[in-house]
């Protein structure tokens, strides 16, 4: 074994295929000890530190921070005997020898051309697969980098066509993986397993709009959840608020796009360029509503409840949805899914970025229950404990941009939702009240909606109702409920 050892990214969590390099904790030339943390890697399951497998000197780092690396790919080379003098050839650094060298394109192609082996006995799980490997049904699979890489390679179709079909159940599909579904799969629509389809239906996600990350470009549960969790609002979170930007000599800083930022970006782009957005504004006098809140706070049974203007806005939205159910719907390609239940999303800026947890079936809650649910949701979000379940399945969202001191905005719809309301700051303003200019408490509402489902009339009526409630909640309650 060479003194240069190459460490390949292991499967860190039972069946993972890739990981993202979050941060290198060492750099080339560093002397490291056995089990010293060298790199932080985030997988679909967890962000973990990997300890060094050998002591020595870091010879090469193969992937920069922010890159996504397939399991089994070399990520770092360590000189296990740096005291033994210089290395023989500098090229060793570039192409480190190790347990599993990176396969060249040629070697990959060679492996993919499956000879008809015909050695498979009937009834056996494993057939002899190309390259002397054994096909398996379950488990970690054979330790061949090529086999692991192939499903994700987006293999060149020509190459796949040239490959003869295997005689028996070999592990790697010889068909070219069709990443996006549409091209290769015309008749059958998108590829997704039934439970995934059910999930998508439940969460109101249109499978046709997704890009599958599974085998053959199929849509996975994660793809659906990612789409459903889509966070959105006009709230621009500060980029790395905690760390001051560090500029290089060119006075520019390059920040890798990943994590919540990447997710938000994907969701926002997708929503902005698929759903035709219309935004309407309404400025209303909320003085009476604010007084009503004060009276509520004064009641004995509401003594321990956190009562905020957001509570009344939420209530206004829920009542208005009852009067205009179409607003609470999803565009699903050839049909519109109107929902009886309202999972009311609240956009929250947290330390880990923008998240949109929702209050499940908020329409069924009493005002008191709604207040408790909102308090709980906000506290959970602030403490960073919001669960993925709480962030999925939202049907309509409120973004409280007023807390940042601005008046309104044109929010972007969370994917799968048809309306989002921006609630601006409540300000004391000169306002014509009963024929005279008075100082009143005024706010601006901004409603974005999906014009494929909601026309100007419906959107305006909905926004008007929300405004009416906030102008005079008692009267609205008496009139509507």
């Amino acid at each position, binding site marked *: 074994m060479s003194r240069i050892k190459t460490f*390949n990214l*292991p499967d*860190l969590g039972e069946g993972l295929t890739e990981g993202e390099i979050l941060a290198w904790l060492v750099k080339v030339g560093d002397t490291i000890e056995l089990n010293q943390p060298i790199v932080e890697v985030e997988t679909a*399951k*967890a962000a973990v530190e990997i300890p060094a497998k050998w002591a020595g000197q870091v010879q090469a780092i193969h992937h920069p921070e922010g890159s996504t690396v397939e399991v089994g790919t070399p990520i770092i080379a360590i000189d296990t005997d740096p005291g033994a003098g210089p290395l023989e050839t500098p090229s060793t650094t570039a192409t480190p020898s190790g347990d599993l060298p990176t396969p060249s394109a040629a070697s990959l192609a060679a492996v993919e051309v499956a000879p008809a082996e015909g050695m498979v*006995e009937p009834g*056996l799980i*494993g057939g*002899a697969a190309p390259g002397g490997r054994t096909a398996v049904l379950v488990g970690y699979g054979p330790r061949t980098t090529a086999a692991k890489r192939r499903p994700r390679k987006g293999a060149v179709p020509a190459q796949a066509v040239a490959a003869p079909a295997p005689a028996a159940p070999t592990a790697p599909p010889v068909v070219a993986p069709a990443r996006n579904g549409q091209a290769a799969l015309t008749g059958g629509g998108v590829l997704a397993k039934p439970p995934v389809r059910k999930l998508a239906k439940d969460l109101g996600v249109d499978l046709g709009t997704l890009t599958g990350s599974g085998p053959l470009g199929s849509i996975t549960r994660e793809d659906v959840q990612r789409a459903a969790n889509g966070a959105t609002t006009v709230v621009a979170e500060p980029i790395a608020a905690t760390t001051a930007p560090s500029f290089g000599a060119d006075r520019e800083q390059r920040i890798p796009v990943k994590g919540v930022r990447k997710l938000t970006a994907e969701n926002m782009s997708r929503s902005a360029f698929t759903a035709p957005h219309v935004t309407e504004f309404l400025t209303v006098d909320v003085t009476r509503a604010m007084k009503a809140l004060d009276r509520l706070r004064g009641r004995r049974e509401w003594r321990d409840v956190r009562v905020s203007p957001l509570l009344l806005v939420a209530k206004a939205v829920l009542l208005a949805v009852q009067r205009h159910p179409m607003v609470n719907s999803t565009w699903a390609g050839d049909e519109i899914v109107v929902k009886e239940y309202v999972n009311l999303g609240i956009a929250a800026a947290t330390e880990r970025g923008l998240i949109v947890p929702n209050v499940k079936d908020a329409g069924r809650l009493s005002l008191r229950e709604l207040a408790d649910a909102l308090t709980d949701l906000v506290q959970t979000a602030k403490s960073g*404990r919001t669960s993925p379940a709480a962030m999925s399945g939202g049907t309509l969202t409120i973004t409280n941009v007023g807390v940042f001191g601005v008046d309104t905005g044109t929010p972007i719809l969370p994917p799968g939702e048809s309306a989002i309301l921006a609630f601006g700051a409540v300000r004391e303003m000169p306002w014509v009240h009963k024929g005279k200019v008075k100082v009143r408490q005024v706010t601006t509402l901004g409603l974005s909606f999906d014009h494929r489902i909601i026309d100007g009339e419906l959107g305006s009526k909905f926004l008007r109702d929300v405004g009416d409630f906030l102008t005079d909640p008692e009267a609205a309650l008496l009139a509507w409920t």
Partner: protein
Amino acid sequence: MAKGDPGGTTRSRRAAPRSRKGTAGDPALVQLLTPDGERIDSATGPDGTEYRVDFTDEEYRGLYRDLVLVRKLDAEATALQRQGELGLWASLLGQEAAQVGSGRALRAQDMAFPTYREHGVLYCRGIDPIMPLGLFRGVDQGGWDPNEFKFNMYTIVIGAQTLHATGYAMGITIDGKTGTDDGEAAIAYFGDGATSQGDVNEAFVWASVFNAPLVFFCQNNQYAISEPLERQTRVPLYQRAAGFGFPGVRVDGNDVLASYAVTRTALDNARLGQGPSLIEAYTYRMGAHTTSDDPTRYRIASEVEAWQAKDPIARVKAFLEKQQIADAGFFAEVDEQARRESVHLRERVLEMPNPEPVTMFDHVYPNGSPLLDEQRAQFSRYMESFEGSAH
């Protein structure tokens, strides 16, 4: 003594020693060594049982050595998983005292039924710590003889082992091996999450009505993977025992002395024929549920820090230093031993041979079967069909 606890007597006042303030803050918690390393002479359980330990200096040092070794070997296993040498690892970090305390309280004849995290108990039973690594590396099924070491195989199914243990304990009674000072007992390990399982509640019922010589040892590490304790129970777990008709006690699971004392008493009660009992070892899983889990997604750093201050090893070290039972040389020697053993562990793991595929037919039936023989032969033929394959 918890307010309103029906078992409370005035005896408990005697055991509420000075300087209990600022520890766990729970008067129902049996504790003999505070997080600061202060010894408490005796503590009283909810039913008035008094707990105390009387160790020699050598024994105190032995417990410390156990704790340090168990933690170090566990850390090495975690590192090996991160380096791709194990498929998975369930770390015991933070739970060393509960495991070493209870493990050392077992007598040679007592039978233990572990989950998949009881590496510390396994160590105390004298099993080579390499054994569970073979399981998690996927090269064997565990490898130790449960009858030889009186330590059952790791059980992955949550709570299932409590039923196995109950059946085993009922067998002890049927064999007439209880009722004397030297009788037999069994102990079933499980976590707080398992208490929500039907199996565990069934085991409680059966053990109770058959008066089985069994100790239910629940390590309440506060999380069922990601679900916090408040999603598991509305009452302290040890109080559940009362509903099933046997005593329950909550012990500071980060206190190796109290864990030892409470387990020893419960085992002795069982071996004397007084039936089962439940121990809730109140502790904290400092690491992830397994290496596939990311605890930062569901718990906050300040909580982890608060438990860091209750570390099971730091308090023993503080005690040993204050009482001048051990000096710097001893601590250095233990650290060096731990380092040596972890390196040894690593070397042996890397050399673990992959089993011959055909060996999977070996232990299906004790005396084989014709169908199995046929399958083995077919499989062998298939394996031999590969060019130059010796495997």
